[in-house]
């Protein structure tokens, strides 16, 4: 009887945990959109790991602006006029450039609109891009594995996958607190720093 009750209680606790996780992952603002097919199959892994291109070579506004920025089509073509010009995905870039059209990238990271996140201040504080965006250098399709979705939460729970940065407020605040406590930083903790 004792064992049975124990299993029942455990099942109940597990169920409660699952229900709670489901609820909590629903109610968290999804900071990351669904992995969608991008107009061009752009592999970060090739650019970062194979060719050793710095993140800020393409996302060059990160150090001077609130936004990290996307490379202009012209910047893509700066290399791809020659490099890999024969590849089918690169040809798509050249086509956009020839038509003077922006590439309609699908947004992956998004914070709610009442949140102000300045990239500049974080770059100045030497925060690595990966701290928030995850191991982008390993990704062939960016954002496919991150996000506070139920599957991710479950996989994290059983330890099958390292926790991806959820980009939620608690996660931000934890990091700020940790930096202040351990690294002697002055990361702001006022609500209105990000919500104004």
């Amino acid at each position, binding site marked *: 009887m004792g064992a049975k009750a124990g299993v029942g209680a455990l099942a109940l606790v597990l169920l409660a945990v699952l229900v709670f996780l489901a*609820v*909590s992952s*629903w*109610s968290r603002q*999804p900071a990351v*959109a*669904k992995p*969608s097919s991008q107009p061009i199959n752009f592999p970060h892994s090739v650019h970062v790991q194979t060719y050793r291109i710095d993140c800020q070579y393409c996302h060059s*506004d990160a150090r*001077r*602006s*609130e*936004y990290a*920025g*996307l*490379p*202009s*089509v*012209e*910047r893509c073509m700066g290399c791809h006029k020659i490099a890999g010009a024969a590849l089918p995905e690169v040809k798509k870039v050249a086509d*956009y*450039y020839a038509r*003077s*059209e*922006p*590439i*309609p*990238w*699908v*947004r992956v990271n*998004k914070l*709610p*609109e*009442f*949140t*102000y996140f*300045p990239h*500049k*201040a974080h770059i*100045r504080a030497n925060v690595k891009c990966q701290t928030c965006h995850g191991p982008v250098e390993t990704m062939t399709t960016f954002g496919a594995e991150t996000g506070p979705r139920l599957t991710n939460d479950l996989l994290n729970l059983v330890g099958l996958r390292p926790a991806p940065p959820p980009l939620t407020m*608690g996660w931000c605040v934890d990091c700020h607190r940790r930096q202040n406590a351990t690294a002697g930083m*002055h990361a*702001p*903790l*006022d*609500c*209105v*720093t990000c*919500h*104004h």
Partner: protein
Amino acid sequence: MMNRRDFFRVVAASGATAAVTGCQRTAENILPLVVPNEHIVPGVAAWFATVCRECPAGCGVIARNREGRVVKLEGNPDHPVNQGALCARGQAALQGLYHPDRFAGPRLRDGAALKPVNWDAAQKVVADKIAALRSAGKGSAIALVTQLETGSLGAFLDTWTRALGTRPRLSFEPFGYEANRAANRITFGRDAIPYYAFEDARVVVSFGADFLETWLSNVNYARAFAHMHTFRDGRAGTYLHIEPRQSLTASNADEWVRNAPGSEGPLALAILKVMVDEGLADRRFGEAVARIDVKKVAADSGVPVETITRVARAFADGKPSLAIGGGMAVTGSNATQTLVAVNLLNAAAGNVGKTVRFGPDSAFGRVTPYAETARLVQAMARGEVEVLVLGSGVNPAYTLPGGLKFADAAKRVGLVVSFANQPDETTALAHVVLPDTHWLESWGDYSPREGVAGLMQPTMAPARDARPMGDTLLALGRAVLGSEAGKGPLPWATFEQYLKAAWEPSVKGAWASALRLGGVWKETAPVAVTARVAPVDPAPPTFEGTADGLALLAYPSFRFYDGRGASRAWLQEAPDTMTQAVWDPWVEIAAETAAKLGIARGDVVRVTSPHGAIELPAYVSPTLHPQAVAVPIGHRYAPYHIPRYVTAPLGPRNPVALLGPAAEGASGGPAYLGVRVTLAKTGARHPLAILQATHDQEGRELAQHVDLRAAREQALRGRQDHEAHTSMYPDPRYPGYRWGMAIDVDACIGCQACVVACQAENNVPVVGRAQAAYGRQLQWIRIERWAEGKPDRPTNLFLPMLCQHCEVAPCEPVCPVFAAYRTEEGLNGQVYNRCVGTRYCGNNCPYHVRRFNWFQYEFPAPLDVQLNPDVTVRQLGVMEKCTMCLQRIIAGKDHARDERRAVKDGDILTACQQTCPTRAITFGNLKDEQSAVVKFAHSPRAYHVLEEIGTRPSITYLQKVVREHA
């Protein structure tokens, strides 16, 4: 254990099933630029200098461009006219740029409607007509009327009229100050309007000149006036104002003298007479006033002899002093003689060359006198004009006196062409509309006075399909002349090319730096003048209308100018400071008259003159002269205001429609003071939306004042320490900065510039008349007017009221969700995404500065483009209030960090502080003992509003300094 945040999460989840379907996110695209613009980094503001063209004052402006769209205007600190400040009208220019009613492309009349056409078709209609008239030798049947254009555009337009052989261009300004010019011609032999150096005067006497509202250059003169009048280190100048109505300018005077309408001239002469009699002025001025009987003037004007004597002595004592006149409301048939008398006062007191400086003459000297415009209208009525071309910024159907019957005359013109970029009373009569670009989208230049040449550049791409007037006229002219670009009398491809060629000799390759600075400034050599002393005719003005009627004071609204500002909803909702009314116009009726006719506030009254009748709700005034009735000029609505913000007015409400056509003989200017009107109750009621219920402080001492003598003594003895209030909460500590503000009530003139600047900076929505009447306006700062003393001669105190950022804030402990809280830097924070809208904080705020979003307010397109991307747009059910421009604080700290230093005093300016013409607002770090804000906080005049309740505000006010006799 469940913490508070999880609790909310679970509570929120209980509604999950209903909400799940609405939670799907659609994919969002982010588009990179194809070729980047090297001047624009997304997320970083770019600033462009240009010149404000909302009125002819020509203040310098810098426009803040974010991601290719202008989101905020500020005064150009390098510009000599406004020195960084901007008035409410300048701040609201953005709403003209992004006006929802702006024409998207040319229009051609088709019956009653204006139909969209393409540029070629519209231009062909005009070019064909002009070409036909030219070949028939009827060039004089073509007329061009523009607003005052002093720079290259004016010169270009004159080239154009000569090339096409049309009538000479008219520079039309409804407020043209013709009488000031005529008087200067008579007294000083100079047909010009000088620079008035308020900053150097010790005593200023204004004969109805509303220099803090619209007169000549209101921001320039407000800044200079503050320099002269605001109490600093024991010194303060004196300002006396003579006018039948207590205008906003009058209520800033140390003494307001109420005179009978039209009696300014005789009063000026009586003052001169007293000066001569008492030996305070040269004997030779006795000749001018030989026939003046001071007692008779006193009896006629209703101003006691003692007052005249006191003003005369104060004025003579000034050394230098300054007398000014020529406000539109007091410009009658005797205006030139009145201003000659004012000139003689300046000459007698030795002010000419000191505070009255010829040389840096005002651009107003180049306005075509009204009489010329009237002659054109008469020619139109006779059928002598077949093409009438109207530049942007002119709206003669609204601004010309009703007696001139412009609309009837325009109907006899075969082709009326307008360059207006939004519909108005004149485009309603136009056959072709060729929308001009807004001045923020245009190349150009403007010289508001000699020595100041402001440059204009496009601060963004046109928001609507519009073309610069210069470009359109070039295309038209070449089509008419059959010439090609590069050849003939109009060779320039664009007006931009003309402008650059015109500037090349003066900038000599330094074009870019002139553009960055906003123009080129030079010292102008003073021109010496001598006064001709001759007797002045002290005749009162003549009036049309029944002898027992009341003199109509039609005065320019400081919010709408001649009506061109009225299409901006921000200005409609910034209250008129004296009445605190929003949206609706009113007729101001003296209390005596109202009692006699049984009129109460809000009764609709018919105001009838020999030239027409208007119906307006009444505002009963205890201060207005009983022989006068006053109506502000410029109240009109834009199409998109109706029915969104107001209901359509039932009839005409423009006081200018009541005026006669006659020009003042000596100057050829219009006579705004020229009709007597009768009043009749219609029986209808239209309550005004008035934002302040009472002007009586009931002893609460919200706005405080101190006697000049006492202020001087305090300044010498230093501050007596106030008793510190004890609090039940632990004293907060501030690890870094502590932000605070000081507001000098002595400097505030009640001009509403801060109110509009804040609205522009902080994405504050417009609520409309009905909601404002409920007290649901959303502005984060307001100017309260508090009247002290006798009800008919009150001393008005203007108190800018905004969130006080209390150290012990009553709003914070009552918030159930911690949305209102104290930040580490001493601000009272409001977290919109936490706020659930209980409104407890608003109810507990003793300053009534918290604002609630009762609705989901809209920003009608394309006004939404103006929204500041650094500030959240609040939604329904959220409480909001002044943040002390937190986004600017963050930007200031960010900038300082880039330079590896702390924020310095003056690094961060709040929007209200930045635009304030009188520098009444100071912001800074209260922990920095050297900062300006701390120095003000330690002033003997410093106090906190409602100090006794122990809220410990971060905003310190400085008492107004009143003069002994006031």
